[in-house]
């Protein structure tokens, strides 16, 4: 089995691992690094549960090989909360608005919305819906997720003003 | 999906019949087909290569005369193959029936093709797969007609396009498949060729055939 040594920084921590070249980034994060917060729902790039940020942009980690992430900076759901465990505004908003039920699509939703809110501090409901249109959720009907994203945007704007 | 063809060859039924039930002779008429082993006079092994955009499949399997009626001049061939890389299978039941007509012999070919496994689920390719199957059969029938015709006029190398139920294509096709109805042995039949042989009614028929339940 063809393998390569992969150096990657995930949520600020540097890792070096040997992995089969055919290993997807999703499986590498989950099984080589034990970061199982990133979920795998379809393995053909439709459900969005495996969405992570690669060098700052949202990416489906089932449609990228781990070896392609060599020397890349990855951000996953495990990296969203503060070191002291304080939830990020987006995570808190998900909790306040019941933006998750089974929690399986949640990591992908959070990472996708993290990118959206970084680009657009004041998204409309339609913009939020379009942003997550590539993330499937079977539980919530999306309504509470959209509400959470809009609340988080508000919180972050407030903090921006005060801070 | 069932695909029907018929054509007339300038040969008496008895002569046409001899050629028709000779698998080694008619095998090359199947685009992309290759006869690899003759098990007995009734059954054979072979491959059919099909290229579907980026996906190249080689169906490897057997063809067998299940019924041969030398009196009534009709025969049924059952062919079954699976992709050598495990991406599914295809099977075809082909019935030939010869009947005498003033110009010679009318050959009726009825082919029932079914796909299985991954190839049957190839979402973006489903439409094309069906059209391609139709094209394979039409080219097979066309080539068969040509070959039988050549029994009568061995000098004639190419089929008489006019007699073929084929529509011109919107874009020009590469030369390799322009001679789509000579011997195709081994050469993969690609969806490119489809562009100039896709037949409206054949495709829509297919769609009736493959309507979901």
């Amino acid at each position, binding site marked *: *089995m063809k393998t390569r040594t992969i150096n990657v920084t995930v949520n600020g921590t540097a890792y070096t691992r040997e992995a*089969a070249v*055919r290993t997807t980034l999703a499986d590498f994060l*989950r099984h080589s690094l*034990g970061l*199982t*917060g990133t*979920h*795998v*729902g*379809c*393995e*053909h790039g*439709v*459900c969005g*549960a495996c969405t992570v940020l690669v060098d700052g942009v949202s990416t489906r980690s089932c449609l990228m090989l781990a070896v392609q992430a060599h020397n890349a900076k990855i951000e*996953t*759901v*495990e990296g969203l*909360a503060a070191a002291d*465990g304080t*939830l990020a505004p987006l995570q808190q908003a*998900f*909790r*306040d608005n*019941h933006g*998750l*039920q*089974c*929690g*399986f699509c949640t*990591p992908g939703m*959070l990472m996708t919305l993290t990118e959206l809110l970084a680009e657009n501090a004041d998204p409309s409901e339609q913009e939020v819906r*379009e942003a*997550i*249109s590539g*993330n*499937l959720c*079977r*539980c*919530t*009907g*999306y*309504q*509470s997720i959209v509400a959470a994203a809009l609340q988080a945007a508000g919180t972050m704007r407030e903090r921006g003003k005060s801070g | *999906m069932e695909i029907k063809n018929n054509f007339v060859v300038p040969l008496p039924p008895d002569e046409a019949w001899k050629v028709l039930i000779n698998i080694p002779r008619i095998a090359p008429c199947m685009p992309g087909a290759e006869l690899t082993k003759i098990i007995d006079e009734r059954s054979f092994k072979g491959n059919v290569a099909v290229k579907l955009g980026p996906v190249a499949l080689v169906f490897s399997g057997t063809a067998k005369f299940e019924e041969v009626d030398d009196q009534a001049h009709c025969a049924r061939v059952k062919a079954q193959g699976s992709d050598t*890389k*495990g991406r599914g*299978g295809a099977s075809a039941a082909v019935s030939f029936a010869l009947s005498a007509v003033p110009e010679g012999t009318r050959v009726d070919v009825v082919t029932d093709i*079914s*796909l*299985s*496994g991954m190839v*049957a*689920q190839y*979402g973006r390719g*489903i439409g094309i797969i069906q059209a391609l199957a139709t094209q394979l059969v039409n080219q097979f029938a066309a080539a068969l007609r040509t070959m039988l015709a050549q029994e009568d006029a061995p000098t004639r190398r190419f089929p008489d396009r006019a007699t073929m139920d084929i529509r011109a294509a919107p874009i020009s096709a590469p030369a390799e498949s322009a001679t789509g109805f000579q011997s195709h042995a081994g050469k993969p039949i690609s969806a490119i060729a489809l562009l100039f042989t896709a037949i409206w009614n054949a495709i829509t028929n297919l769609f009736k055939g*493959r309507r*979901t*339940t």
Partner: protein
Amino acid sequence: MSRLIGKKVPRLEDAALLIGKGRYVDDIRLHDVLHCAFVRSTMAHARILSIDSEVARRMPAIHAILTASDLASVLTSPRLPLGTSTTKAQNSSTPFVLQQKEVAYVGEPIALIIADSRAEAEDAASAVQIDYEPLPVVIDARRAVDNDVDIVRAELKTNVLNRFTVGYGDIADAFSRAAHVFSDDIWQHRGCGDSIETRGILVEVRPGGHELCVWSSTQMPHDLYYTLIGMLDLDENRIRVITPDVGGGFGPKYCIYPEEIAVPAAAKLLGRNLKWIEDRRENFMSAVQERDQYWTVEIAVDAEARILGIRGRLVHDQGAYTPKAVNLPYNSATAMTGPYIVPAYSMDVVVAHTNKVPVSSVRGAGYPQAAFAMERMMDLVAVKLGLDRAEVRRRNLIPPEKMPYTKQLKARSGAAMVYDSGDYVASQAETLTAAGWEDFPARQKAALAEGRYIGIGIANAVKGTGRGPFESATVRIAQNGKVSVFTGAVAMGQGLATALAQICAEELSVSAEDVTVIAGDTAVTPLGLGGFASRQLVTAGSSVHLAAKSVARKALKAASNLLEIAEESLELDDGHVRVKGGNRSISLAELAQIMRGAPGFAFPADLEPGMETSIQWKTEALAYANACHIAEVEVNIELGNVTIKRYVALHDSGRLINPMIVEGQIVGGIVHGIGNALFEFMGYDETAQPLTTTLQEYLLVTATDVPRFETIYRETPSPINPIGAKGVGEAGTIPAAAAVLSAVENALSPFGVRISRTPVTPEILFDLIQAGKARATS
């Protein structure tokens, strides 16, 4: 006045899930685990002539390739028993663990490959050569019932699994007295559960090789536990089944599957830890599907559109096997009359096998089809008689003064079908007002003038919830004063732990955060049924409520004994028992420590040891939740495309324990129903090859396909359980497809379009519109 019941308590589950610390089956790490892949049938019906795994066996990292005969030595039967049946009998319709003679649907498991990694297992799977002899395929349930057709499986004499008639009253008389009779043929498609987490199972072989610990993404850990005990001939103390975090159930995880037997059997055989995680394509080819039913319905009404009788025939497509006792068509047939008074009723039901994926519950379990059939008929009556669709319904709804209302039908348990409570008339009236039903015709006229086709639709529904016979709960106060709740109910994403913690904390006067709920672990909960039929809050919730009450009484009694103060002057407060109006108190922690007993110390008189109580609250009756949905749509007639403009949903699910969780269940359920109405279609070709085996082909509803939903809640407490609750898990789904397509039909009324199927794709609507135009011109 309650502190926690009816409050939007943030979910206890969220803390871990939001930071990526959930623990789903594929997240659990075992050392030395091997990975599984299944070789599955590529034919819908064929005889297996040979299975050649020689090449595969020689491939790198392959540990074993097992067929049915390889597993025979560790199995008591080659096929599964009928799930959750009291008679654990195998029968000629239950699935095989592995099939090596005759496959009956595409996806049926044939061989199990065990390798160092899933990728290598798949390499070998594609190298296993299976020689099939194709057999005739049965694809259409309606044709399957004819006697002369091909048989789905050679072992069967007929494709008809079951025939029965559900009904009451003098149906012939009803139709002879009718002022009008209308009829229709209705087809509802086959769809999938499609939890975003697929199925999966992890098996650890404990030292000694005879003890198994099984983690499965199932709604039914106890059922799996009992099934494995039987199938693997294990002592019950040698196996433990745990449901870890579940990434959605929606019905399909209610069944016990061949993979859930094959993997533990292989683990026992090889003495190795094994993991199998279903991939999405497998999920489309092997997880149960639902809704495939063909209805032929006749409705008889009097001159005022009051229903006199309904009769018809229901053909239910059961697929190739029957994993569970067939409940769906029975649910459908008995649920059709819903919230309406139907004096006479007769439905002939035929359950037929086909060469398709086996059928069992998907969110709604037969109820959505029933609601769709009934509501379509109500619209038909209204349209044909030129009456308002809501008015026709109003005239036929069961009025509140008739509650409790006994339907002349029996529930599956054999108990009478008694609607316990609810005001259906008021529910509909309130929804009509909220949705602006009255002024819609004016808006529709105005829109039409601009060439826009908008429509409004309505559907009512009733859902029997809280199916028994019981659910278990043990409430225990630990040495540190924290509270544990153990239950046989299963947390599969709906927030069960939070709801049960609220109920428990309410009685013990502690905070919900101090309560830990341990659900779905057979080692700590001897009895349990699991998650299905919108039952868990009602059944487990009632048991938790009673158990917590009993523990509270015990705490007061113990404190009274220790403090030598009368119980009446004591109260529970914030983890302590306090003297009312005084400052003396004793903490629950101290009480728990004393009540555990200590050698050599006298035990408080007339008290039983331990600060815990176990309750299995039993019920035969169902608590009936009701709903009224009104949808507003616009149809683009050039494309046949539907846009849902507005959606108002009223639900009466009895007392709401956590309105936030209820809202999530309802909205999620509605969107599932919208998927059934407009998007989701599990396609098969004419040889029963599945066509939609990816999420690119099988269309789930996305965030851009739905509007913001408006919900209204009525709270009519159920008198039949101690917490007054009714289930909500499926309620949102049941009327949704009917409401949406009622609106679509209304929008296309200028073309005289009638909709009698789900789903309706843009192309189907486009064709209906063209046909309507043609009728108009001819």
